[in-house]
Structures are given as structure tokens and as C-alpha cells.
């Protein structure tokens, strides 16, 4: 069996599970973000009284952190009341950050577990050898009532990443290259296991970026076998003992794709689709792409490593007049560390706007919305029409280094000359 199948088997009380089988599995941690007051409504509509386990579920207020309007404030108020009434052990209010960063930091994510959240980017937690998957509000309400959810045991695709990344190629470039090949629906209903020598050496932040965007190919979940970096990270934080699962050597993948990371270049997902991936060099060869806004943040590209490289590239430069650069640290912990190391100072000196940790403008909620006709380069995960505001705005997805280099000149720029 694959490690993901072993996790599903263990949590559904079975010795073996097979592809296509429907299992009902225990959920080790459930997270509800602040877009999902419907979860509370569905919980009561279905006759829910108390959550099944007040130590295994939490709210994270990240999409409206802090609240931009009366409606979202009222939603937070109702969710806080639910959290208080149920005596939830963990609660992450507007001072914490994006759920997928905050949960691992708090130690509720660890290898071998199942985490379900009302957020499609829950695939992120494959970085830790966990099975993470997103669900809607009402599925979540059934988890809060029962502690379980039904799953179809997925086909598993191997994405093998070998070799060392050349200068200027970051985990974001790697996952964009993968997306360009597998496409936006290439892994629908399936799981993606990222393997290979590049993954074996990859740090926690890079692993999270890659697993995070597995959902942009439609994947149900992502997986990476934990390495020493992951073990060191979770040993310091995990709130429960854990068991790492391993894939059997005779496991046969449904499909395999191989990438030589040493041959990659900085990549861009061009408007208006995550699968519209081209090398940065080929895009700028066709003419300057003039930018109105740069954005570094989100569960994909707002970690300390992302802000660090941006600060190093932008130190001593200043963004052009009439452009703006928004930096949204993924969490309080990330922001505090970036402050201590001087990155925030360097970025503010370069003209950046720093906003509160959270999802910010990534999904068009607030803090950096685009006007019709504007062009943005961003380290986030989606460039769908209207994702960051106007449907007539255009978004390029890129690594944080590419965003930073591009903001020196206000046009898309190869980061390699600044490294």
C-alpha cells in the first residue's frame, strides 16, 4: 500500500484499503476558516449540539483578518460564540495568520494524520507526511458532529522531481512547471505523491509551497515522505505522538511524471489560468509586461523564506512611483521573525506596504484589490478572472524572488541578475 492508503486504512479501522473503495475515516484535526459560517448553520440544521471533540477542531480567522466590513465582523462574532460555547481548545483569531501556516506552527499537523479543512489548499499538509484535504461547509459540519468523513481511496500519481535547482529557480517555479505539464484537471479525484532527490532535500517551506498547489491540478491530497527537516519541525511542536507511514516498495502508481529540476528556469503562470505556464524568459522576450502591483503572501508564498529572498533582492532599491508592492506575512510567527531579522525594515525602505498576516487580497477579500485593466505579479496560487478584484485585471503567478525583482523596475524581470 501507499503511505496515503495506510493513513486511510488506519483511520478507518481496516488493515487494507483499495483504490476506489469508499471508507469512513476518523479525522484527526478539523479546521474551519472564517468564510464558513455556513458550517455552524449546517451543524445546527442537522441537529448538532456539541462538537465531537473540542481538542480536535478549531476556527482560523484568516480570510478577513482583521474584518473589512460589518458582514464579516458579524460572521466572526457568531463563530467566536460557537467556539466559546464548545470550549474549543485551539482558537486562532485575527492576530494569527493563514490557516495552513498557523496549524503546523501550533503543532496540530504531524505525519500520519488526516486533516480536513474548509479550504482547498489543505493539500499543503502533505509536506509533513499528513493526509490533508479540503471540504465544504456542510461536509465539515458532519465532521464536527461525528469526527468522521467518507473518502474514496484515490488513485495516486507520482511526480518525481530529481536534481538540484539552478540559481533563481524556487519551489514555486518547480510547481508551476509541473502544473503547466499536468494541467488544471490532470489530477482530479487523485492524490499526488512528490518524490525524488529534490524533494528529499527540500526544506519545510518549499515542501509546503509545492504540496499547496497540488490542488491547482485538482488533486484530492498531496504527499511527501517526511525528511529530517520535517521531523525536526514537528518534534518541536506536535501536540500528539505520531507515526510516520511509508509506501511499500512494490506499490504501483496510477501514473508517473518525471521532472529534471536542474533544467528548469523561472516560470510564470500567465493570465488567466494556473495552467497557462511559460518560462519567464519567453514571456519577456515578447515585450515588457508593465506592472501596477506586486504581491508577496498567502499559504503558497508568504513564509519567512519567501519574505527573506524578497528583502535581499529589494534591499537598497525602491519600487517605481505609481506602483505598489504588498507584503502579507503568512503568520504572526513569520512576521515576528522577519521583523527581528530586519526584512520588514528593508522591504518598507524599498516602498513596500506591509499588511496583517492573513489571506489578504489573494482571494479578493481586501488589502490590495485590483482595478479594471491593472496588472499584478504575485506569489499566490490562483490567477483566475476576478480572483484579486476586477475580472478585467490580469495576474501573473511567480516565485517571490521574481515578484521582488520585477518590482525594482515595475515590469516583469528575471530575478537571476539580482542573486
Amino acid at each position, binding site marked *: 500500500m501507499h503511505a496515503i492508503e495506510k493513513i486511510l486504512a488506519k483511520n478507518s479501522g481496516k488493515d487494507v484499503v483499495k483504490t476506489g473503495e*469508499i471508507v469512513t475515516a476518523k479525522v484527526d484535526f478539523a479546521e474551519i476558516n472564517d468564510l464558513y459560517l455556513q458550517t455552524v448553520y449546517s451543524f445546527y440544521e442537522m441537529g448538532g449540539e456539541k462538537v465531537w471533540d473540542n481538542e480536535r477542531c478549531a476556527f482560523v480567522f484568516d480570510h478577513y483578518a482583521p474584518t473589512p466590513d460589518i458582514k464579516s465582523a458579524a460572521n466572526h462574532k457568531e463563530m467566536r460564540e460557537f467556539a466559546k460555547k464548545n470550549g474549543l481548545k485551539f482558537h486562532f483569531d485575527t492576530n494569527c495568520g493563514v490557516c495552513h501556516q498557523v496549524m503546523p506552527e501550533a503543532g496540530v499537523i504531524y505525519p500520519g494524520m488526516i486533516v480536513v479543512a474548509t479550504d482547498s489548499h489543505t493539500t499543503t499538509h502533505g509536506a509533513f507526511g499528513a493526509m490533508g484535504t479540503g471540504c*465544504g461547509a456542510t*461536509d465539515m459540519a458532519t465532521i464536527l458532529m461525528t469526527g468522521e468523513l467518507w473518502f474514496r481511496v484515490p488513485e495516486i500519481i507520482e511526480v518525481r522531481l530529481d536534481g538540484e535547482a539552478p540559481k533563481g529557480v524556487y519551489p514555486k517555479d518547480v510547481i508551476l512547471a509541473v502544473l503547466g505539464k499536468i494541467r488544471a*484537471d490532470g489530477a482530479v479525484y487523485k492524490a499526488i505523491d512528490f518524490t525524488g532527490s529534490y524533494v528529499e532535500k527540500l526544506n519545510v517551506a518549499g515542501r509546503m509551497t509545492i504540496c499547496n498547489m497540488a490542488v491547482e491540478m485538482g488533486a484530492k491530497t498531496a504527499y511527501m515522505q517526511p525528511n529530517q527537516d520535517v521531523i525536526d519541525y514537528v518534534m518541536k511542536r506536535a501536540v500528539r505522538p505520531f507515526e510516520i507511514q511509508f509506501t511499500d516498495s512494490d506499490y504501483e502508481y496510477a501514473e508517473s511524471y518525471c521532472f529534471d529540476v536542474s533544467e528548469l528556469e523561472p516560470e510564470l503562470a500567465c493570465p488567466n489560468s494556473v495552467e497557462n505556464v511559460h518560462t519567464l524568459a519567453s514571456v519577456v522576450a515578447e515585450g515588457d509586461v508593465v506592472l501596477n502591483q506586486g504581491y508577496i503572501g498567502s499559504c503558497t508564498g508568504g513564509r519567512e523564506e519567501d519574505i527573506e529572498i524578497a528583502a535581499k533582492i529589494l534591499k537598497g532599491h525602491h519600487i517605481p512611483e505609481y506602483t505598489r508592492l504588498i507584503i502579507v506575512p503568512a503568520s504572526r510567527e513569520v512576521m515576528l521573525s522577519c521583523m527581528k531579522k530586519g526584512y520588514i525594515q528593508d522591504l518598507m525602505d524599498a516602498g513596500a506596504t506591509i499588511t496583517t498576516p492573513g489571506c489578504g487580497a489573494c482571494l479578493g477579500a481586501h488589502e490590495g484589490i485590483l482595478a479594471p485593466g491593472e496588472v499584478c505579479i504575485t506569489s499566490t496560487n490562483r490567477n*483566475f478572472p476576478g*480572483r484579486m478584484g476586477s475580472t478585467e485585471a490580469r495576474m501573473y503567478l511567480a516565485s517571490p524572488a521574481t515578484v521582488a525583482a520585477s518590482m525594482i523596475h515595475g515590469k516583469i524581470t528575471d530575478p537571476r541578475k539580482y542573486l
Partner: protein
Amino acid sequence: MNKEITGKVIVVGDNIDTDQIYPGRFLAITDPKEIGSHCLCGVDEAIAPNFPSGGIVVAGRNFGCGSSREHAPIALLNMGASAVLADSFARIFFRNAVNLGLLPVICKGIREKVKDGQTVTLNLEEGSVTVKETGEVLPCEQLGDQAMKILEAGGIKPMMRKRFGKDSVE
């Protein structure tokens, strides 16, 4: 549940993501009717106000990709949609739709066979879609057993109420 549904269609494209079905700026809204009034406004703001009651949305591949927001099927249902026919669906959207009683049915190639305003009949038992104007019949895929169990219970909410003994009066 009704296994034969007839309705007028509106046709949209490939990769219609949940931001186009229900843009992020409306996510704080909780009133279902109001949610429905913004449905598909990322594609065309004229769709929701003119949507025929009981109508069917026809799409290409990967309908509902992107966010896990349940607002997407809530919006479709409250706009008046009874089913979505598409080449393929994103996974979380599929689950959310089934949970709420909106039929997500795979009917490959349907987008090329119908035009806005035409009428189709979806027959779940036969696994067919018939276009009234042309008489053309296309095969559609069966929903899985798990999905049918939920749909036949009227959605996940009645199913859970029954499981927790909340509907003993009925």
C-alpha cells in the same frame, strides 16, 4: 428524488472556477437568496437575473475548480439551477453539490451540442441527456453509489438528521 429533469440551459466554458461562479468579494454574505443573485457573475452578470427556473448549467471540463467554497452550489441552487452537466467536475465542488442536492452529472461533449436557451432532459436512470430542439441523445455517466445514497436522502442534511434521530416525528 426526481430522476428525470427537464430544463432550459445556459452554456459556459472550460475551467469555470469557483471565483467565477461566486467571486470572493461576496463571501461574507450568508443569505441564500442573495448568494444566488450573484451566481456566475464572474462569467457574466446577466446570467443570474435571467436564469430560467429549474434550468441546467452546461459546461466544459473541470467545472467548479478552485476554492472549497460551498457558496458555489448554494448560489447555483438559489439561482434556480437543478443540475450541472459538464465534461468533468472538480472534486470538492462535486461533493458540495451532492451534499446540497444539486446534480453534478458528467456528460462528455454536451457543450458542443446545445446552445443557450435550448431545452434538455436529463434521465438519470437511463444515463442519457436529450436535446429537445435537435432530438440528439447523449450518454451521461452514472453518479456513484455513495453520491446516489446522499441524493436519494434529499442531501446530506436530511441524512444526518435521520442518523441522529432528529426526524422521529416525521
